[in-house]
């Protein structure tokens, strides 16, 4: 144990070091940004003439789901991996079949409290008439907007990620008001929904490899249909992924007050 004075000096010193590092990083980034050669964006020159080959009229969708489909595939894989990590972090709840995950005493008690809170029934904010009326109004709008975004993605800004996030937002509303609960370990259908986007996307890519000899190659004649299918499955899958991050989340307003 060091005397309090020494500790204060150490704290000040570490703050100063962090400050100097942060300022130098900002300075370096600033210099790089200013000295960057002014190059015109050349992507458009390649993209626009090739747009009719992509199967999508929206250049962003063409890049995301055809020309750079590999990146999007990896993004979806990262999302699925993130969900697996979140599920595994859930204290005391095993995701694997290799036996129970050991959590501390505090972890187990958090879980029990959560369970008791849920058993106490509709006492929280989720049961109010206002919330019910609001949900009845908002959820159909969310569904409609998500459907539009997913559909419009092929020729307007929008697409699977935006539509999926919107759907997930609706699911989160249901979860926080106690109308939907995703228990852990996750049910088969939840796992299937989370994995479906990656599986279908990868399947389309492998199909390109088998038939045309190139991974994730979508021939122009079929690209439009492939993108439509992949985008539709991705929308649902991304919604499932984002909603699955809220597994085992207690209902809003049911926290024990003092």
């Amino acid at each position, binding site marked *: 144990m060091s005397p309090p004075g020494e500790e204060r000096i150490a704290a000040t010193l570490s703050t100063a070091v962090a400050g100097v590092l942060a300022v130098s990083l900002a300075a370096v980034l600033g210099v790089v940004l200013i000295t960057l050669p002014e190059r015109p964006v050349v992507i458009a020159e390649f993209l626009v003439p090739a747009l009719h080959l992509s199967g999508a009229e929206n250049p962003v969708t063409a890049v995301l789901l055809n020309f750079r489909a590999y990146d999007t595939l990896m993004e979806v894989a990262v999302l699925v991996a993130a969900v697996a990590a979140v599920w595994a972090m859930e204290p005391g709840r095993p995701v694997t079949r290799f036996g129970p995950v050991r959590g501390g005493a*505090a972890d187990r008690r*958090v879980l029990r409290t*959560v369970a008791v809170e849920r058993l106490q029934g509709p006492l929280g904010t989720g049961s109010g008439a206002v919330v019910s009326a609001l949900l009845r109004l908002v959820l159909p709008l969310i569904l409609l907007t998500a459907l539009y975004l997913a559909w419009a993605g092929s020729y307007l800004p929008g697409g699977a*990620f*935006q539509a999926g996030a919107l759907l997930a937002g609706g699911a*989160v509303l249901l979860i926080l008001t106690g109308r939907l609960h995703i228990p852990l370990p996750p049910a088969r259908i939840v796992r299937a929904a989370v994995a479906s986007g990656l599986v279908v996307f990868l399947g389309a890519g492998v199909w390109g490899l088998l038939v045309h000899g190139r991974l994730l190659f979508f021939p122009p004649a079929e690209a439009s249909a492939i993108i439509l299918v992949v985008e539709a499955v991705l929308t649902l899958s991304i919604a499932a992924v*984002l909603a699955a991050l809220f597994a085992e989340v207690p209902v809003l307003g049911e*926290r024990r007050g003092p």
Partner: protein
Amino acid sequence: MSLAAIAVDLVTVGLLIALAARIVITGDFFEAVVLLIAFGLLMSLAWVRLGATDLALAEAALGAGVTGALFLNALRRLAAREDLAQEEPQPASTTVPEAEP
């Protein structure tokens, strides 16, 4: 670019920087999360001004919506854990209860 557009952009950038600074500086997690949601919404406005509508949609839905909800949920769990930690039986040696920060 009209004067009004420049003014809107300057206000947006200024607010974004101010929000970002406040989020980093504040010691209150709840305030930081709420401001982060505001930052996400403002950022999506900035994306619209830059002509990146796709990003704006994703930012509003993911950056402001889902991330904000996730952070708030994490805060709720942290608070629940602290409540439990306080309930833990204190060792006999510590008779003086510690002051709440």
